[in-house]
């Protein structure tokens, strides 16, 4: 079978694919994407066109309720023993709709700040990106994590307001004002990980909001650049496996899940993507340098302070979208 995989960059490295194809006889076609585009594509195809998707765990229940683009997982076909139990349970909990489980975890990580410490040592929190001393040398994404991060940094708690649209709106308005004011500081809004890396590496940008792995990879090239867990707390995410409603190669999909969750393979993925996986024992084989960087960025209190995304209720994204558009349009 051909497995059409809709995933993030780095989650399906060529060597893993080669091994998988050799072992199972399936072929793999990879389409790299991000959360929004995954949902958009599946919505357009009504859950067709792909056999396995990897959205974040907070972005499954809402779209599923709205568009019905996933099909329930047959847990009997998944070797659950390969997963870290706590993560598996948490993910299952977040992705259960009408009693059916729709996703299991794969890769997890955090978003925070990537800082060139030599040139912007003062940036410790999201709101520090708006400081004058880094004016014109700052970048972040114009996406919902930025809104959430700034909210925490401003002492607000958006996750607590998920259930209350009015309260959430209140928070959004404040964040919007802040980000609008901050816009002058921004060089450009980045869109993809490599784009940011280019910006940081060339020195065009000295501080940015980004994923942890981006910071660690940059650290290899330039020791001054690293990931910093913000004072308000890094944002924690888990990317999952979910079956599109009209995938045609479910068996190949289950094979892939079971294949990549093996500890050795998980380590290869960690090496490629830079993030740790939900594979039980998967971190054992990970290169020590990465572990060291992880530990440097995350002292224990920072780990405790990670804000894990709860599932996004339907409807919030429209509000966030409008806010983001306004920020984008502001002058």
């Amino acid at each position, binding site marked *: 079978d051909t497995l059409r995989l809709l995933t993030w960059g780095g989650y399906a490295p060529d060597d893993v694919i080669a091994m998988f194809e050799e072992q199972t006889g399936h072929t793999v076609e990879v389409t790299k994407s991000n959360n929004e585009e995954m949902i958009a594509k599946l919505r357009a*195809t*009504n859950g067709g*066109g792909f056999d396995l998707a990897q959205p974040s765990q907070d972005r499954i229940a809402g779209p599923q309720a709205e568009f019905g683009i996933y099909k329930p997982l047959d847990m009997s076909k998944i070797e659950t023993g390969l997963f870290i139990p706590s993560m598996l349970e948490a993910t299952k909990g977040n992705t259960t709709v009408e009693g059916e489980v729709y996703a299991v975890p794969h890769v997890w990580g955090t978003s925070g700040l990537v800082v060139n410490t030599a040139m912007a040592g003062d940036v410790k929190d999201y709101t520090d990106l708006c400081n004058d001393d880094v004016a014109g040398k700052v970048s972040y994404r114009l996406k919902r994590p930025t809104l959430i991060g700034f909210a925490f940094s401003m002492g607000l708690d958006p996750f607590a307001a998920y259930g209350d649209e009015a309260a959430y709106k209140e928070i959004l308005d404040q964040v919007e004002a802040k980000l609008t004011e901050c816009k002058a500081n921004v060089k450009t809004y980045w869109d*993809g990980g*490599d*784009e940011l890396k280019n910006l940081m590496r060339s020195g065009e940008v000295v501080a940015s909001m980004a994923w942890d792995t981006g910071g660690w990879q940059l650290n290899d090239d330039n020791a001054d650049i690293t990931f910093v867990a913000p004072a308000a707390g890094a944002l924690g995410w888990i990317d999952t496996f979910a079956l599109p409603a009209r995938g045609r190669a479910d068996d190949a999909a289950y094979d892939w899940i079971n294949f990549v969750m093996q500890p050795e393979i998980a380590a290869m993925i960690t090496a490629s993507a830079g993030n740790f996986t939900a594979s039980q024992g998967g971190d054992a084989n990970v290169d020590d340098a990465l572990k060291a960087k992880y530990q440097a960025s995350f002292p224990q209190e920072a780990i405790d302070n990670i804000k894990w995304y709860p599932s996004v209720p339907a409807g919030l994204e429209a509000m966030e979208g409008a806010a983001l558009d306004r920020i984008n349009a502001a002058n």
Partner: protein
Amino acid sequence: MITGIPQSGAFKWTYRAYVTLFFLYLALPLATVCVFAFNDSVFPSLPWEGFTWAWFFGDEAPYVGVFNERPILRSVVTSGVVAFWVSLLAVFVGTCNAFLFVRHDFRGKGFLYILMLLPLIIPGIILGISILVFSSSVANTLEDATGLWFDGLRPGLILVVLGQFSFITTFATLVISARLQKFDTSLEEAALNLGATPFGAVRAVTLPFLYPAMGAAGVVAVLMSFENFNTTLMLVGSDAPLTITMFDRLKLGSTPVLNAVSLLLIVVSALLGLASLLLQKRED
């Protein structure tokens, strides 16, 4: 060419300088793209790190060359398949349209002609979304009614081909009509007069006359299909044509492998362009 109009030396000189500047402007970005295809650096920008062929033939990450990038090669094939079908359909329908509009008079002809031109003034993205929305709702209705799956109506290559075809046909029609208009119908009558059947006359005389235009329309269709982005973006499924793949890469920030692809594209399009030019030459 006008020979006789006297112009002051300064004016002539400025004019020439302007024209030169203009062509520099045209060539600059492409030249840059091509040059950086040989930069021995993982970023397609300065500084210049030395010359390399790695972006064509490399096979060792991160120096993976075009010829070893499976997704890019696959999307080139996809683009080729799409372009083939689009140009085939567009030339066929364009030829029919040309005969219809040039040879026939009927009620509502003017109206249909304007409708035919309409795709020129519909932004590509709107063509894309309207076809997407419409085919989805048709598919939903059909699926609800029959319980079967109609994947052909969901984003995918079929919709990409149809989406591109929907506006490229207008160009094909214009190119072929222009040629057909120049056709002297007495040639067809002469063929009839010499004993050919009506269809035989069209085949023996009119179609050969149209071949250069049909060829040119085909080449234009291939070029437009290859470079189309706006419409395709909305209709693409899991098989992405080259522009979409490149866009995804570019958004993420890419190695000069993109420059290498572009360089190859430039070479191929230049050859195609020359071919169409030669075809048009023969036309005159």
